[in-house]
């Protein structure tokens, strides 16, 4: 891109303004590219650092193991390790290209398909959780009494261990959820578990966001004789978006965790949770596959986080970016 001269010799203010705008747009694009490159490099370096630490400790732990007699003191404090406990990084990543016994697909493809299955459960649960969470936030924001009465129960709901309710929901789904016009699938029960983890941060942060407008802003809307819906749509919802997106980032990753844990404890086939459980059973014969499948789950979590961040940038990004200039 050629450098645009702001001091270009022209007396026409319109031309000058146009050039300034062009330059601003150019700078903005350049800044965006620089930001993405910087973030990517940082990420790669950080991952390399983690792999280095892992490999480094592994070498150290193996050394302790090999010299049990000489390094007895150290060995009694720091855990020893070997290839079974910490498979080499190269083997873990190499596993992605392998074809496990009895399958004609490489491992990364299998993980990808299973991640999609888990993503579908999580996404369905996430969307339902978003709706329920916002409905609770709206109700609590509207009726203050309800806030005092209901909020403790909303919080208490999160103290019930997920492992405990997951099988219950699946059993209910199989036996009792025949009121729905469609046939109840097990993955839908897993979605409910994802919903259970999603609605909470949405409700709590959504409430804070809806209550965030200053009293003058509320009075301003009243002075315009704006009705409840107009005030909600033009003031409270837009004001709540930064709070809401902070919650959605937590909720998105939580929905993935919920789906994986739900699959494991409910015994639902086809997703990453089941995959991780199976690899854990076969740990002694292929530890690198367990590590690889866990990595796959992590990537899925990062993916949904990035999607939410991207949506946030589109929806509320403009004003944030401009305010920093």
């Amino acid at each position, binding site marked *: 891109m050629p450098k645009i001269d702001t001091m270009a010799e022209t007396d026409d203010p319109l031309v000058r303004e146009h050039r300034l705008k062009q330059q601003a747009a150019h700078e903005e694009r350049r800044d965006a590219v620089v930001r993405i490159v910087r973030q990517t490099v940082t990420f790669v370096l950080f991952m390399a650092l983690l792999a280095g630490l892992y490999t480094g400790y592994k070498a150290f732990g193996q050394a302790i193991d090999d010299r049990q007699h000489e390094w007895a003191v150290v060995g009694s404090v720091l855990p020893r390790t070997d290839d079974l406990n910490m498979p080499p990084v190269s083997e873990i990543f190499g596993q992605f290209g392998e074809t496990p016994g009895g399958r004609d697909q490489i491992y990364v493809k299998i993980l990808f398909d299973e991640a999609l299955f888990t993503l579908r459960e999580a996404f369905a649960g996430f969307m339902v959780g978003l709706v329920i969470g916002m409905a609770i936030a709206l109700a609590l924001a509207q009726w203050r009494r309800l806030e005092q009465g209901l909020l403790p129960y909303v919080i208490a709901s999160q103290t019930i261990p997920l492992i405990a309710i997951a099988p219950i929901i699946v059993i209910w789904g199989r036996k009792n959820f025949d009121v729905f016009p469609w046939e109840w699938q097990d993955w839908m029960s897993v979605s409910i578990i994802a919903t259970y983890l999603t609605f909470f941060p949405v409700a709590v942060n959504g409430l804070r966001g809806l209550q965030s407008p200053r009293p003058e802003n509320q009075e301003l809307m009243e*002075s315009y*004789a704006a009705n409840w819906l107009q005030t909600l749509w033009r003031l409270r919802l837009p004001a709540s978006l930064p709070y809401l997106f902070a919650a959605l980032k937590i909720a998105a990753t939580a929905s993935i965790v919920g789906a994986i844990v739900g699959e494991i404890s409910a015994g639902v086939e086809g997703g990453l949770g089941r995959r991780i459980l199976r690899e854990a059973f076969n740990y002694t014969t292929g530890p690198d596959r367990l590590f690889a499948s866990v990595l796959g789950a992590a990537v899925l979590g990062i993916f949904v986080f990035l999607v939410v961040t991207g949506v946030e940038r589109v929806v509320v990004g403009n004003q944030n970016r*401009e305010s920093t200039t």
Partner: protein
Amino acid sequence: MSEESAVSEAMSTGEAESQLVIDIRGATKVFNPGRSNQVEALAEIDLAVEPGEFITLIGPSGCGKSTLLRLIASLIPPSSGSVQVNAKPAEQARLDRDYGMAFQTAGLFDWRSVTKNIELPLELMGWSKGDRRRRAAEMLELVKLSEFAKHHPSELSGGMQQRVAIARALAFSPSLLLMDEPFGALDEMTREHMQDELLRIWKETETTVVFVTHSIPEAVYLSTRVVVMSPRPGTIASTISVDLGDRSAATRDDPAFFKKVTEVRIALREVEG
């Protein structure tokens, strides 16, 4: 809509000369009545404001000047007495959008551009997009911010934000402008500049203004009438008419201006006891 334009039309043609813009009789306000934290904010307020007046409410903190403004705006109801705006109950005047309001903080919506902020009341009143755009452009010209139409509030200085807030308050041509210490957070130079801008806009739009402040020079410089209020409970202690003609930079050095400032100061001193 049509009713409003009819009212403002009547005002400008002078047909409704006798009609008061604000007519408050025996209005009181008690917060938390019957409880231990009961506060008598206003006691027996009588106030009549004619079309085209510029009234400032001045008084020490806690004298209820902001409360009085909110009674006029019908943001809170009086405990007793009546508040009429444009010859109808204040509540009805609010529903008819008879007044525009500006607050101490500009209170612009960060997520909207300057233009969209000014369009906000027009959206609520169901104006078409084209009409909104046109009016917003006119208002930006009025407050001399046309080149910042597409900026976001956070990019503007405090004085510029306040000007946008005034443009927003006047966008739908209300006959009454209510202002709650709008220049309180501005530095002295910007403040004097904004006062001149406000007076210019007041003349151009022929609006009636009720302006809350605790700056004596500001009150004298702006108003046709200064209403001095006393605290606990809030009452109108005295009303001082100000007739200094057209204001300009020279007015601020005018002995007549200082005389009025002194008069208001003495009235306030008496109030404070």
